């Protein structure tokens, strides 16, 4: 820890306003994820607990507002603040889980492709090439339309579009790593492939993935929001931030702006925070740019 506090990384972190703001925003959302249910009075996902008669209350500071509902309520009597906290949980959990799945699958495939070359390599990389020729949102949209809606389906779709970037990066680093003498030596020494990959190659290809993974969470949050906005994302009973915006859109013209404005703002803050921090990480961890 002492070492970290003295490190160049931490030095630059302290001096970078964007890194601090970014990580602070991320922290806020991390708190939502970890402690969300204890922070707000209502569980907006428990439909049975909702009071239909409390629907469409404006924010508390406006006329007709109810102090119980700081940011107002939606058409089902759901507290917007609670919905945003719970929605952010869903959005973040989807983003992070999909990122972890993508990272895991992509890294494994990238290692295999880079280490064994040959047919495995060409097969994996051709799939990656074809996939990269389509924008992620289009692939995700198509997959969702085929497999149907649901959080699990969103995760599948996001993972399906997310693994490629890891596979390519890891493959590249692996290719250069296995040329190095110590790996060659380990191979000559007859160490099993699994050990070489895990002990020698893997640790050396992970650093660039940190930046990719960070930024990808933000990308995934946005893709998920877009899918939900188009009605092919998460189920309406567990609305993510994107679905909250969509639900709010339907009533925006009646002047019920708070139902979409706050969730939209939350998406923006979340992704903005992730991108700010990701930018900082990119500058720090990419030695080429220093």
């Amino acid at each position, binding site marked *: 820890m002492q070492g970290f506090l003295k490190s160049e990384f931490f030095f630059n972190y302290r001096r970078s306003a964007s890194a601090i703001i970014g990580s602070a925003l991320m922290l806020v959302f991390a708190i939502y994820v970890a402690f969300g249910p204890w922070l707000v009075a209502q569980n907006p996902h428990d439909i049975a607990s909702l009071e239909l008669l409390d629907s469409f209350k404006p924010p508390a500071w406006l006329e007709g507002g109810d102090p119980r509902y700081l940011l107002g309520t939606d058409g089902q009597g759901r507290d917007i603040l609670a919905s945003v906290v719970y929605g952010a949980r869903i959005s973040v959990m989807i983003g992070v889980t999909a990122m972890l799945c993508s990272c895991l699958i992509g890294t494994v495939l990238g290692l295999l492709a880079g280490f064994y070359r040959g047919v495995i390599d060409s097969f994996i990389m051709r799939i990656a090439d074809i996939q990269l020729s389509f924008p992620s949102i289009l692939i995700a949209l198509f997959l969702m339309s085929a*497999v149907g809606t649901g959080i699990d389906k969103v995760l599948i779709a996001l993972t399906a579009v997310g693994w490629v970037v890891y596979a390519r990066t890891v493959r590249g680093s692996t290719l250069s790593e296995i040329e190095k003498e110590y790996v060659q030596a380990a191979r000559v020494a007859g160490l099993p492939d699994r050990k070489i990959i895990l002990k020698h190659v893997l640790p050396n290809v992970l650093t660039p993935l940190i930046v990719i993974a960070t930024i990808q969470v933000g990308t995934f949050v946005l893709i998920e929001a877009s899918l939900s906005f*188009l009605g092919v994302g998460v189920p309406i009973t567990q609305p993510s931030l994107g679905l909250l915006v969509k639900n709010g859109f339907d009533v925006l013209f009646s002047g019920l702006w708070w139902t979409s404005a706050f969730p939209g703002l939350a998406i923006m803050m979340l992704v903005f925070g992730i991108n700010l921090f990701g930018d900082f990480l990119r500058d720090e961890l990419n030695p080429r740019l220093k």
Partner: protein
Amino acid sequence: MLGYLTKRLIQMTVVLWVVSLIVFMMMSFTGDPVFMVVPIDATDAEIAQARRILGLDQSLFVQYVKFLTSIFEGDFGRSYVFRQPALDLILQRMPATLEMVLVAMALAVVISIPLGVYAGAHPGSRISKTIMAGSLFGISLPGFWVGMMLIYLLAVQWGWFPSSGRGDTVEVFGMRVSLLTADGWTHIILPAVTLSLGTMAILLRITRAGMMEVGRQDYMKFARAKGVAPRDVLFRHGLKNSLIPVVTIFGLQIGDLIAFATITETIFSWPGMGKLLIDSIYRADRPVIVVYLMLVALIFVVINFLVDLLYTLIDPRITLK
């Protein structure tokens, strides 16, 4: 060049084939399109007749083989819903989408490149930091939300722009174009702005990164040692060198714009092929989805080809192989 073209052509064929195969396989998971066509109380016999007419009574494999063979006769299948050739349906709507994408792209380029060059050349300045923060907001904003807010404020509250549709169009070479009428322009502005925000931010960031990367190169310092003014160093030596990543991203961004046009078109009721895709997804209209994705893949291949050509124009070290 010939070898390059052959390679590209083979690549394209493979991509298109894989796309068609995947779409066919995946679409077997979706709802049965026949239910989107028959009345709600249709009897089994009526449903069977509809299936027969739509060609859905055969196995998926047979359907796929039929689809492939008829492609060679220029027939890409018929929409289940419209009973019209799927390709025609898409081609009719393509100009509207391309038009919007074009305007969005132009907006993005005109705004982001100069700002990106500035921010890359003056990394520490307050203005650069503001530009960069703005660009981060640009990539963090959900596009549909921006579209909503634009309609709400600019179209409904203040009435500056129409809220939806394409406005007056003029027919040019059989394509309907709205860029030639004032009314068309007022209609295209909001969707194009909505669509371009993300691309604008990304192009800006890439331009800046390219400029900064180039700024570290010896030839930039060498140029200054030659006595070239800093401004000229930036534009004469820097800009062109930083363009290669920009061109790459530019190509990718056209793809993204076409993809995100689906959402923008849905919000603004823009009669383009993106909206057709979303509608077709809602209606499980497989033939349209297949052809749309194949067409988009084709567009991407063409864009990649153009990007490659552009590389050779920018960088004498690159040749088409």
